[in-house]
C-alpha cells in the first residue's frame, strides 16, 4: 500500500515539473515550427518573466489583488523582449545568414540576456513571494498539491487552445504556411514578418505563463535559472516531436515523469549500480532511444523527403 | 562481362505500398544491353517510384530485381550504384557548392584507389590518380560541352546545363544501366533536341542500357526502342512506339485523343487544342 502511495506521489512529482517543462516546450515548438530555429534564448525569456514577477508581486499584493495577477506585466515584458529579440537580432540574421548562424545568434542572445540581467539584478539568487495558496488534496495518505494540479490544467488548456488556434484560425494557418514555404505564403497574401513576430509574441507570452507556474513551484530567481530549464524543455519538445503542439505537452510530461521515476527507482532496480544522480543521463538516453526509433519524435510527422 | 543473352535489368513483380497506397504493383521489365526503353504514364502513375525501387531509395514490399544476373533487392543506394545502376533526378540534385568538375569527380570516387594515408601524405599515387581522374572528368564533360565550365560552381549553371551535368555525373559512376527521370522537363524544343543528341551519343559511346522517363512525346517516340506504360502503378501497355501510340488505353489514360501528331513529328499541325477546349466549355456551361 505504502509502495503504491509512494508510486502515485512520484507520478505527481513528475507531472509537476513535467507540466512546467511542457509549458516552456510549447514556446520552443511554436518558434521552431515557424522559423526552424532553436531559440536558445527561450529559457531566458522565462528568467525575464520571473524577474518581473519578483518585482511586481509585492506591489500587486499591496493593491489587494491576488499575486498571480503579476503574470500580466510579466506577459507584457516577455512579449516585448521576445519581439525585440526577433526584430533586432534574428530577423537580420535570418535574411542574410543560414540556419547555423541563426542558431549562434540565439545562443549569443541567451548569453546577452543572462549577463544583462546579472548586470542589472546581480548574480545572487532572490526569492519570489508565494504565488498560489491552494490547499492540497488528500486521498487518504496520499497528498496532492493544488499547485501541481493547477499547472497541469493550465498546460492542457494552453495546449488545446494553441492547437485550435493553429489549426483553425487564419493567423494559425498563416503560421503553418510561413513555416513551410515563405514565398508561397506571401503569394497567398500572408504577411510573413508580422506572422513571425506574432509567433514570437505568443511564444514569449507562454514563457511568462511558464515562469508563473515555475515560480509557484520553485520560488527563486537568478540570472542563470533559464539555462538548464530551457535545455530540458527543449529536449522535451524534441522528444515529443518538435513543431508539434501536443508533442510538446507529451514530451514535457514524459521528461518530468522519467526524471521523477528514475530518481525514485533506478537505484533499487539496478541494485545500486546506477543511482539517482544519473537521472539527467537517463533522460537523455531515453531521448536518444526515442529519436533512433522514431527520428521525428513521439508526435512528429516523418518528413521523409520525396525523391 | 556477362554473357550476351542475359538481360542487364530484370524486374519481376516489383511493388511498393505507401500507407495503403499501392504506388507500384506487379512491375515487370527486362532491358537488354544497349537498349533504350521508355517508361511513360500519367502523373502519379509510379514512374519515379520505380526508379526509387531500382536504386534502393525505397525497399520493394514485393518482387525482385536483378542487374546483370545479380540479385539487387535490399541493397543500399551506393551498393546499387556500384553494381551498375545510376540515375538522374526529376528535381535536379546537384552538389550545388561544388564545381562542375568536382561533381563528376565525386561520382568517380569508386575508381580512386588511394586511401587516407595517400591523401594526407600526398603520395605520388595520390597525384597520379588525381591527374588521371581530372583528365577523365574533362573528357566526360566534353561530351556535354561542359569542359569550359569545369571550375564553375554547379549552382551557377543555367538550368539546361545543370540537367546535362547531372547526366554526366551519373555516367561517371561507370554504370551499366542509366535511369533518366524527365531529363527534358523545363526545356524548350530546341534544347530538347540537343539533349536527344546527347542521349544518343552516350548510348552509342558507352554501350549502356537506358531507361527513360519523359513526358515529351517527341523525344520518347524518337529515341526509345520499346516503351512501357504505367497507370496507377500497373503496367497498362508495353511495346514499340507505334504500338503504344495507337493503344487506345494509353491514348485515353495518357496521350489524349490527338496524340498521333506528336509521333509524326509534324510540328505545325501539332497542337490544336481547340476541340477539347470546346468540350470543356460545354461542360462548364452544363453545370
Amino acid at each position, binding site marked *: 500500500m505504502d509502495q503504491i502511495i509512494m508510486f502515485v506521489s512520484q507520478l505527481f512529482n513528475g507531472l509537476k515539473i513535467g507540466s512546467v517543462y511542457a509549458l516552456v516546450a510549447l514556446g520552443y515548438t511554436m518558434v521552431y515550427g515557424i522559423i526552424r530555429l532553436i531559440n536558445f534564448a527561450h529559457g531566458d525569456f522565462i528568467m525575464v518573466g520571473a524577474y518581473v514577477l519578483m518585482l511586481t508581486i509585492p506591489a500587486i499584493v499591496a493593491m489587494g489583488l491576488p499575486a498571480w495577477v503579476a503574470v500580466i506585466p510579466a506577459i507584457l515584458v516577455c512579449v516585448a523582449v521576445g519581439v525585440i529579440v526577433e526584430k533586432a537580432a534574428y530577423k537580420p540574421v535570418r535574411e542574410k545568414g543560414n540556419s547555423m548562424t541563426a542558431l549562434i545568434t540565439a545562443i549569443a542572445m541567451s548569453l546577452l540576456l543572462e549577463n544583462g540581467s546579472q548586470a542589472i539584478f546581480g548574480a545572487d539568487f532572490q526569492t519570489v513571494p508565494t504565488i498560489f495558496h491552494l490547499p492540497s488534496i488528500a486521498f487518504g495518505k496520499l497528498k496532492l498539491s493544488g499547485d501541481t494540479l493547477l499547472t497541469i490544467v493550465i498546460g492542457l488548456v494552453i495546449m488545446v487552445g494553441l492547437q485550435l488556434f493553429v489549426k483553425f484560425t487564419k493567423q494559425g494557418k498563416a503560421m503553418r504556411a510561413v513555416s513551410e514555404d515563405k514565398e508561397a505564403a506571401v503569394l497567398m497574401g500572408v504577411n510573413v514578418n508580422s506572422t513571425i513576430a506574432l509567433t514570437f509574441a505568443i511564444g514569449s507570452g507562454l514563457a511568462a505563463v511558464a515562469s508563473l507556474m515555475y515560480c509557484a513551484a520553485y*520560488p527563486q530567481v537568478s540570472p542563470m535559472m533559464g539555462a538548464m530549464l530551457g535545455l530540458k524543455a527543449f529536449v522535451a519538445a524534441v522528444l515529443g516531436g518538435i513543431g508539434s503542439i501536443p508533442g510538446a505537452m507529451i514530451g514535457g510530461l514524459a521528461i518530468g515523469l522519467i526524471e521523477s521515476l528514475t530518481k525514485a527507482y533506478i537505484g533499487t532496480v539496478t541494485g545500486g549500480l546506477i543511482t*539517482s*544522480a544519473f537521472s539527467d543521463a537517463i533522460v537523455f538516453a531515453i531521448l536518444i532511444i526515442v529519436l533512433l526509433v522514431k527520428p521525428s519524435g513521439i508526435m512528429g510527422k516523418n518528413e521523409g523527403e520525396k525523391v | 562481362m556477362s554473357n550476351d543473352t542475359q538481360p542487364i535489368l530484370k524486374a519481376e513483380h516489383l511493388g511498393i505500398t505507401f500507407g495503403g497506397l499501392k504506388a507500384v504493383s506487379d512491375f515487370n521489365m527486362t532491358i537488354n544491353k544497349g537498349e533504350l526503353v521508355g517508361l511513360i504514364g500519367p502523373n502519379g502513375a509510379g514512374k519515379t517510384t520505380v526508379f526509387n525501387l531500382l536504386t534502393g531509395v525505397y525497399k520493394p514490399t514485393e518482387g525482385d530485381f536483378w542487374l546483370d544476373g545479380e540479385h539487387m533487392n535490399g541493397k543500399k543506394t551506393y551498393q546499387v550504384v556500384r553494381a551498375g545502376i545510376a540515375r538522374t533526378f526529376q528535381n535536379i540534385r546537384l552538389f550545388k557548392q561544388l564545381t562542375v568538375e568536382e561533381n563528376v569527380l565525386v561520382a568517380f570516387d569508386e575508381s580512386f584507389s588511394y586511401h587516407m594515408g595517400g591523401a594526407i601524405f600526398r603520395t605520388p599515387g595520390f597525384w597520379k590518380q588525381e591527374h588521371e581522374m581530372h583528365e577523365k572528368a574533362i573528357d566526360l564533360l566534353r561530351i556535354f560541352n561542359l569542359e569550359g565550365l569545369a571550375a564553375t560552381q554547379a549552382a551557377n549553371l543555367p538550368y539546361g546545363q545543370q540537367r546535362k551535368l547531372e547526366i554526366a555525373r551519373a555516367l561517371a559512376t561507370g554504370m551499366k544501366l542509366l535511369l533518366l527521370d524527365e531529363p527534358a522537363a523545363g526545356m524548350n524544343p530546341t534544347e530538347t533536341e540537343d539533349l536527344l543528341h546527347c542521349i544518343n551519343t552516350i548510348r552509342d559511346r558507352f554501350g549502356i542500357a537506358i531507361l527513360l522517363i519523359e513526358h515529351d512525346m517527341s523525344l520518347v517516340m524518337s529515341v526509345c526502342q520499346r516503351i512501357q506504360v504505367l497507370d496507377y502503378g500497373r503496367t497498362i501497355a508495353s511495346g514499340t512506339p507505334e504500338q503504344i501510340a495507337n493503344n487506345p488505353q494509353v491514348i485515353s489514360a495518357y496521350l489524349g485523343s490527338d496524340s498521333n501528331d506528336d509521333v509524326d513529328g509534324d510540328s505545325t499541325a501539332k497542337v490544336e487544342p481547340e476541340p477539347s477546349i470546346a468540350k470543356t466549355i460545354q461542360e462548364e456551361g452544363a453545370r
Partner: protein
Amino acid sequence: SGGSMDDSSSSSAKASGDTITIGTVTTNSGTAAAYGEAEVKGFELAVSEINAKGGINGKKVKLESMDDKGDATEASNAYNKLVGDNNVLAVAGPTISATTAAVAPLADQSKLVTIAPAATSDSIETGNYLFRTCFKDSYQGEVAARFAAENLKVKKVAVLYGTGDPYSSGVGEAFAKAAEKLGLEVVDKESSSSADDTEYSAQLQKIQASGAELLYAPYYYSVAGPYIIPQARSVGFDGYVMGPDGYDGLKLTGDKAQYNKTYYTTHYSADDNTNSKVQDFIKSYKSKNNAEPNTFAALGYDTIYMIKQAIEKAGKNATREDVRNAVAGMTFDGVTGKFTMDKSGSPTKSVIVLEMKDGKPVYNTTVQPK
C-alpha cells in the same frame, strides 16, 4: 625550454611603490557567479576598511580583480596574468574547488601565495603556496556527524547530495563515513545529478520512507532554502535537516516554521557576542551593501585581513615568498573565528552550529577542533 609551462619568470615581485596590489580570481559569471560575487563584496569591504585606516604598512591597498567564469582554463589564464604582474603580492581566490584545483599547481610553481576563501575540497591541498580560509569538506562532515550523534542524539541518518558538485559530494561522503564510524545508521543515501537541481521530491520521499531521523543535505543556501527543505517537509519529513556552511544566508520561502529543526555548521554567528569582529562586520557590510552578508562574504573579508596580517609581518619590502612564509602557520583572529594554519594550508578552526528558529539562524553551540 621556453615551451615548458613550468617555468616561473617573476618571483622578483616586491611590495615596492606606494600601493600594495592584491590579486583576486573569482567566479563572477556563469552558474556559480553568486558565490564569487559575495566573495568580492567581502574583499572590497575589507579593502575599503583597511584603506580608511591607513592601509598596510602605510601603503594603500588595491585589488586587481579577475573573473574566471567558473572555468579552469579561464582561471589559470587569469591567475597567470596576476603572476606576471609584479605588483601583485598575494592572491585571494579562486571561488570554487574546480578552479582552485587548476590554480593550485600554478601557485606552487610561480611561488605566489594564494588564499582560497571558500574552496573546501579536501584534495586541493598542496601544503605549499595554496591556503584556504574555510574548513575543508571532511572536517565539516565529521563535525556535523558528531553533532548529530552527540547533540541531537539521532540514530538513523540519511544523506542527499549532488554528485556533480565537488563540495556537495565531498561533504556528503565525509558525513556518511564519519556517521558510520560514530555508530549511526545511514539508512539512505540519495544523490542528484547536480547541486543546482530544483526538484528533489523523489529522493526525499525515499528518505522519508527510510525512517531517517536526520537528513544531511550538503547544498548551497540557494538550493536548500527554497527547494530541499520545503520539499522535504511537503513529503512529510519532519525530522532534522542538517547542512554545511553553504546554508549560510539560507533563502527562505513560504512558511518560516518549516525551517525549524534545521541546523548547519558554519564559521560565525550573528549573535556570537564573544566575537566583536562579527558584529562590526555585519554592521559595516549592511551599511555598504544594504544586504545581509553570507559565509562567502565573511570568508572573503577574512581572507583579505589574513593577507594584510601576513604582509605586515613580512615587512615593508616583502617579496611574494616572504608573504607566503608569513601565512604558513599563522594564527589569525577574524570574523570566521580564531584559527591556525596547518601544514597542508587549511585552518584548524572551531565550528559554529546554528539552528533555524522561525526563519532566523540562532547560535546553538561551538564545536572545538580536536
